[in-house]
């Protein structure tokens, strides 16, 4: 029977967390369809413990493409490999993470595979009777949820919003198979080369991957005050987010921007201080698990989406929260 596949992403040989989330999605689809769950792992020097972990957390069969030429994501190279594998194994469903690489690779592959592709899904299910994949995703800034299917084409492809599911608990006795995927030598002509990676300033990780994001907006009033956000983020072990106004004023750099023209994020906790909650900002946080707002305006738009709000002056509230965190740490 045609398998369900996930694409496992690697960075510097380590399998990324989002890959385990995908397996949780894939596992339930494969169980419903009573087929094997495969995962395609593409990278260089892939950590062997991580490969086992993929099996412990849901994969029945691992297609391992490990080659120096695959050390960084290069769309054409990854796509060629995946297309060859698709034509050999004919999976019925392929899901990848809606990350910068997943959202590049999947449309490129879908065109050549003549497959339907749905972006950034938050729910996946199998339709009873037809066994079609039902793919549900937020669209138009999260204002609607659209359910999409691909009745006449296989494979059915989707990218899945990171952090929209929890990985399964590891089960160390799960049987699994590893299949090495031969990697074609790379053609020298027309080659795209990755030259290097520059880390994000003042960030330990990205806001897309962070559990907690502490964000500030124009209510901070000036650059110097933005340290209140940075300090609080540090105390929380969180990343710093910002509204577009804060970014455009140069208080913080663009990779921190949340919203329509910045990042869409789903942290467990989003704390927004001095952010009014314009529709374009909210578009980026609709799938955050918990939203806390600190604003001195009772009418602020963000309160419509917040789970908890402190109506008050952020210049008093933020230091008090920080103080309290300090006390907890010492206690």
């Amino acid at each position, binding site marked *: 029977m045609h398998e369900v596949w996930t694409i496992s992403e690697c960075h510097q040989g380590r399998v990324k967390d989002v890959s385990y989330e995908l397996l949780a999605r894939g596992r339930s689809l494969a169980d419903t369809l009573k087929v094997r769950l495969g995962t395609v792992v593409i990278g260089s020097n892939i950590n062997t413990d991580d490969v086992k972990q993929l099996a412990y957390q849901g994969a029945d069969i691992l297609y391992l493409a490990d080659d120096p030429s695959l050390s960084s994501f290069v*769309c054409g190279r990854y796509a060629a490999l995946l297309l060859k594998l698709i034509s050999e194994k004919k999976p019925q469903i392929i899901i990848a993470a809606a990350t910068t690489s997943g959202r*590049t690779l999947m449309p490129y592959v879908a065109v050549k595979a003549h497959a339907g592709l749905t972006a950034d899904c938050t729910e996946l299910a199998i339709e009873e009777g037809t066994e079609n994949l039902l793919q549900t995703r937020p669209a138009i800034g*999260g204002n609607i949820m659209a359910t999409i299917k*691909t009745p006449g084409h296989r494979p059915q492809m989707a990218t899945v919003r990171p952090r929209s599911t929890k990985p399964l608990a590891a089960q160390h006795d799960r049987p699994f198979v590893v299949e090495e995927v031969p990697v074609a030598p790379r053609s020298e002509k027309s080659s795209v080369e990755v030259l290097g990676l520059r880390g994000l300033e003042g960030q330990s990780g990205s806001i897309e991957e962070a559990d907690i994001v502490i964000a500030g907006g124009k209510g901070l009033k000036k650059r110097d005050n933005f340290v209140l956000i940075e300090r609080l983020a540090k105390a929380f072990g969180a990343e710093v987010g910002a509204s577009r106004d804060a970014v455009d004023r140069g208080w913080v750099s663009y990779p921190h*921007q949340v919203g329509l023209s910045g990042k869409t994020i789903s942290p467990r906790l989003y704390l927004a201080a001095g952010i009014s909650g314009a529709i374009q900002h909210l578009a980026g946080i609709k799938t955050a698990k918990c939203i806390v707002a600190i604003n001195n305006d009772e009418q602020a738009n963000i309160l419509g989406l917040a*789970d908890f709000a402190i109506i008050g002056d952020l210049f008093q*509230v933020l230091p008090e929260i920080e103080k309290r965190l300090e006390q*907890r*740490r010492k206690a």
Partner: protein
Amino acid sequence: MHSIVLIKQVPQTSDVQMDKETGTMIRSGSTSILNPLDVYALETALQIKDRNGGRVTVITMGPASAVKVLKEAIAMGCDDVYHLNDRAFAGSDTWATSYVLAKAIEKIGIPDLVITGERATDGDTAQVGPAVASWLDLPVLTYVASIENLTSDSLIVERLIEEGYQRVQSPLPALLTVVKEIAEPRLPTLRGKKRAMATNIVTWSASDLDADQAFMGLRGSPTRVVKIATPKVSRQCRMVKVEDDDSLIEAVDQLFTFLEERDLLGGLNA
């Protein structure tokens, strides 16, 4: 240097309506604007023209009203514009859309660069750029935040990815999708506006393209929208007010209780 920029007309995010029957957007009634993220693609191409010379061609596929965004592109300084308009294109998903756009690009002639926005704010898929590159077999560089070393046959870009800025070198021709950080968009000039008024916009229908009509429109689209729902806003906001020092302490107490209840302070205990 010849760049082709793909732009889309989208409904303003603040007023959108859906047809519950067909699952498509009702365009009439809501204000349509140039996809705000495509302005950065236009600006990128114009800056390349300013520095390296050449031309900027712009294509949009959409209904008659989409002419408006092409006029905006001319007003900013773009040279040639094409409007792909035909009932046969209606209902295209990203697979079919990218096919039509790729066929139009082929007809114009493969440029040095194809540039698109990061994503359109209505469909929000970010798929059309990479998909066009796939049809044309071009290298694709997504989430480009800056361009350096642009020569007649290659370029180096920085891509904004989860781990930071990735520096990548690619041969030309190539397709780029760009993020907001790449450029500060210029405003339309008076001269540009005049030119926009005077320009006769070229419209291509399906039969103008050397393309298979079975690959276009709803019929050519592998995906089907089967349901549209408005997400329920299930959030209940617990609100506390700070008026003085006492209520400040009380508010922060309540916040911590709230965070603890949700197990959001887990890692932060001593």
